[in-house]
């Protein structure tokens, strides 16, 4: 469902599989645990492993976006397939996050402290 990787003060959350009601609560808990337990400032959500996501899954991500952004961090997204992109766009998440072509690029830019690139 999600795997974490930390580089400096950037946390990458790599989502996997179908993100719907069934994984919403465990995903929320896993993300919140990572947010509380790991010292990081910026979050990269990597959608490359996502095969399906609906508004319930996106609701969990928007909630975590608010937590990280509320604490002054930047949230970026990467790995959007055309199917996933459409739904992510409809949710409004793309309006408040930066999209990068790859996880490595996202991490490099955010670690460099730049929200602008």
């Amino acid at each position: 469902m999600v795997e974490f990787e930390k580089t400096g003060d950037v946390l990458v959350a790599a989502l996997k599989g179908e993100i719907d009601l069934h994984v919403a609560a465990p995903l929320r808990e896993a993300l919140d645990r990572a947010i509380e337990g790991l010292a990081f400032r910026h979050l990269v959500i990597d959608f490359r492993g996502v095969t399906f996501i609906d508004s319930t899954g996106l609701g969990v991500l928007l909630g975590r976006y608010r937590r990280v952004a509320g604490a002054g961090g930047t949230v970026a997204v990467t790995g959007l397939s055309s199917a996933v992109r459409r739904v992510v766009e409809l949710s409004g998440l793309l309006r408040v996050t930066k999209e990068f072509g790859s996880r490595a690029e996202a991490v490099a830019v955010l670690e460099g402290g730049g929200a602008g690139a």
Partner: protein
Amino acid sequence: MLNRFRLEFLSRSENVRLARVTVAAFAAQLDPTLEEIDELKGAVSEAVTNAIIHGYGNSPDGVVVVEGILFGDAIEVCVEDAGKGIQDVARATEPEHSGDPERLGLGFSFMKTFMDEVKVESAPGQGTRVIMRKQLATRH
């Protein structure tokens, strides 16, 4: 009517995927595009999730019924629950009307984006029936 199916399952979150996959497999008979399949799965996911969360208040003991009908090159999908029903359907189907700040309240918006028509029949205590229709650009 070319074909019809009816699927009944308990209001458990693991069954949302079952509904998506069943409707997708059924619609495949009309040879839709991948994008159309994704849209159908998306709409079904929203409707079934609503039945579980709102209709049955997350109780795992309710029954959700999903029906699909193929008409020529269109599919009609109906998602029904015998749960608590909707007081004000017009208001409930507007975006951001959601009791939960973490659910986006976009379920109905997504359904209306993915499907050509969405009708909701509901009343308090009388359950809810969501009927959605989509014309498919079949390649026959």
